[in-house]
């Protein structure tokens, strides 16, 4: 009886039903959302036809304002208006103090080490501010595309460390988005260029945004985008150009550097306007208060020269790391609004000995590439399957060893996903616990590296020093996120963590935010949980159904098939009801009974890839 009903494809998706997925570029200055529409990836406009959403959030006592109008209020309401929040993502209070006088906010500490910005709506973490931007983009996408999103690909600077990536993922979660993948911005740009302009060979992506700089060297071969090396600076961008001009104004006008937040914003706005004017003009009149003077492009170029030089140095390092010669780079792609600055283009052209490509709008190219990847990940291109992105970790990962030194476990520019183990031992007789301190960075002293997490492996059987064998395993997933496990090999004692960065939000903070969040305030929580479980269940059913149709005959014997069919039937039955717990349990059960099947299918894929290769060889 069960088998009959299973044969009905009631749970499988309609063949032409497109699953809605978007690419989101969450930028320092501007954010965009893009999607594939009639085969073309394009940014989605708001009701006024604008595709760019300024990454500005203004908090009022009773509501939140995001975008252009918030940006305009920056100088009149500086304390409640947050700009360039990306620069604070995954940062600790001490990092923020280093940025110091550049930021006009009042910071308060939270339960975690993360800085909170004090606003009329109460303290806001950078994660929440980012989530407010993402919510607007999500709503825009759902309105434009006319349906609920399956998920989103969110882009991050390639040089973002683990804490910054985790913070971005938390923000997306808070905005109610299912993150299909965190994608590196330069890789996203490469996808847009690779597919659109059919680029092949070695490509350098020079990505200078509002607050971050990335350089990636990729090899493009028949739809495979292989990142060879990446480098950059997460605190270098167009904002710094603005600050350089602002500094010039302060000096030239003889102003005191001690400006109030409103004046600071005003000054930066004048600086930014001057910078933009100098893209086309050779000289521009800058005025602030009663003072005014001419800023020539030449003078501007020399103001930003140290920053341009810093970016080029990172380029040379990335080329060296990738093991190729500068002459072998076939194309240089410009990404990010700051690459509109003529001096930047000129300097990059000199460094690489060729004119950089600017065919795709540098402000939009990242979102466009992300949307292409999102569409593939959502499963809309099952047959094509041409696109494959092989990315790397930007910074080395390691552990603290004796003497405050960092021992690298995974060096920078290693292809992800990656798993690597290192063995350690005890150094005292009878030692029963070991502290594991996880670090990220290139320097030898741990004080120069970023501390990602600390945890303790307890319950090691007492032995003489050096007798215990502790294996620490690092695993980095396709989002570039790390998890670490430690195990004493003799006794099997185990401890593991999904690395929650020291500067991340605590689980308590996230739970509270979810509760407080406008989005969820009106929702019936039970109903929401039930809906999520139904979505999970449906997703699994569809996946199993699809797999059975393709490989069921080949890979399963009659008995195995019957077990799976029965569990599917059971789950489909439960889904008609409203017992969330039962659905969750049955979803797990179905997942368990299909484990072996899934493993066999994966092995088949490997063999198929090899078999295909052999065939080609024979034909040659």
């Amino acid at each position, binding site marked *: 009886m069960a088998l009959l009903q299973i044969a009905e494809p009631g749970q499988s998706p309609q063949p032409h039903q497109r699953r809605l997925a978007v690419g989101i570029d969450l930028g320092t200055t501007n954010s965009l959302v893009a999607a594939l529409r009639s085969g073309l990836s394009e940014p989605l406009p708001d009701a006024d036809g604008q595709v760019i959403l300024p990454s500005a959030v203004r908090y009022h006592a009773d509501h939140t304002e995001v975008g252009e109008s918030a940006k305009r209020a920056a100088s009149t309401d500086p304390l409640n208006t947050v700009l360039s929040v990306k620069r604070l993502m995954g940062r600790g209070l001490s990092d923020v103090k280093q940025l110091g006088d550049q930021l006009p906010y009042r910071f308060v500490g939270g339960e975690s080490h993360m800085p909170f910005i004090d606003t009329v709506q109460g303290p806001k973490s950078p994660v929440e501010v980012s989530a407010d931007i993402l919510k607007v983009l999500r709503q825009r996408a759902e309105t434009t595309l006319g349906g609920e999103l399956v998920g989103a690909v969110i882009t991050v600077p390639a040089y973002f460390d683990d804490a910054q990536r985790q913070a971005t993922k938390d923000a997306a979660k808070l905005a109610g988005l299912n993150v299909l993948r965190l994608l590196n911005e330069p890789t996203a740009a490469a996808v847009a260029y690779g597919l659109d302009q059919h680029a092949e060979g070695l490509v350098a992506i020079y990505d200078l945004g509002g607050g971050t700089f990335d350089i990636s060297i990729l090899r493009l*071969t028949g739809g*495979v985008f292989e990142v060879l090396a990446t480098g950059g600076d997460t605190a270098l961008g167009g904002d710094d150009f603005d600050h350089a001009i602002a500094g010039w104004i302060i000096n030239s006008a003889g102003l005191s550097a001690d400006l109030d937040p409103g004046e600071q914003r005003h000054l930066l706005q004048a600086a930014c306007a001057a910078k933009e004017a100098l893209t086309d003009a050779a000289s521009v009149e800058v005025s602030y208060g009663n003072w005014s003077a001419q800023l020539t492009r030449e003078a501007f170029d020399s103001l930003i020269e140290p920053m341009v030089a810093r970016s080029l140095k990172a380029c040379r390092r990335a080329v060296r790391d990738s093991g190729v010669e500068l002459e072998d780079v076939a194309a240089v792609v410009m990404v990010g609004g700051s690459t509109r600055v003529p001096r930047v283009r000129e300097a990059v052209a000199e460094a690489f000995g060729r004119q950089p490509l600017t065919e795709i709008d540098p402000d939009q190219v990242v979102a466009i590439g992300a949307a292409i990847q999102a569409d593939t990940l959502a499963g809309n291109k099952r047959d094509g*399957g041409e696109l*494959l992105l092989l990315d790397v970790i930007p910074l080395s990962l390691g552990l603290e060893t004796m003497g405050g030194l960092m021992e690298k476990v995974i060096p920078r520019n290693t292809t992800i996903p*990656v798993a690597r183990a290192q063995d350690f031992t005890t150094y005292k007789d009878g030692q029963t616990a070991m502290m594991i301190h996880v670090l990220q960075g290139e320097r030898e002293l741990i004080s120069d590296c970023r501390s990602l997490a600390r945890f303790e492996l307890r319950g090691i059987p007492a032995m003489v020093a050096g007798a215990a064998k502790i294996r620490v395993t690092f*695993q980095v997933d396709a989002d570039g996120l790390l998890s670490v496990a430690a195990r004493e090999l003799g006794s099997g004692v185990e401890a593991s963590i999904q690395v929650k960065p020291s500067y991340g939000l605590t689980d308590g903070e996230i739970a509270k935010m979810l509760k407080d969040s406008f989005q969820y305030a009106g929702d019936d929580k039970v109903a929401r949980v039930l809906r999520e479980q139904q979505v999970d269940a449906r997703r699994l059913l569809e*996946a199993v159904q699809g797999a059975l149709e393709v490989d069921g005959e080949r890979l399963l014997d009659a008995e195995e098939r019957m077990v799976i069919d029965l569990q599917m039937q059971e789950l489909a039955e439960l889904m008609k009801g409203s017992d969330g717990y039962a659905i969750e349990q049955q979803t797990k059960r179905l997942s368990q009974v299909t484990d072996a099947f*899934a493993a066999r299918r994966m092995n088949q894929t490997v063999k198929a890839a*090899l078999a295909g290769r052999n065939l080609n060889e024979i034909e040659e």
Partner: protein
Amino acid sequence: MGIPCHFALFELQPSFRLDLEQLATRYRELARGVHPDRFADASEREQRLALEQSASLNEAYQTLKSPPKRARYLLAMNGGELPLEVTVHDPDFLMQQMQLREELEDLQDEADLAGVAVFKRRLKVAQDELYESFAACWDDAAQREQAERLMRRMQFLDKLTYEVRQLEERLDD
């Protein structure tokens, strides 16, 4: 054991001489099949499997791609695991090592970028010679000791290559 050897994974015979282009092509084909991106929509279990398989594919590729790692792997396959750090009884090579290091220090003191370029080319020649010698003897049990010695020399030159790159970075200020 359920884990196939790195060479078998790429359907290659164990050998030190490898066509790196061919290896890269096979790697890309295999990666297509197991990369987590293909399973973004699948069950949690399948996603974890993809993550594990991709990670071990990447590990295998990294091992075969690098000559010192490949050499080490071949020796381990042939005659058991080798300790990472051992005292090397190789006086000629120790002498050469010291000379090379001194030269590198001089280049640093003089900030001689052109000299670094020449040094790199010499290093490359020395590495290629080692690879040739190793390829000729690694599978001969009678020459096992020699093969191990050559592998350790490779490791040293590999480390030196890394130091040269760090020096280039320091000189690039």
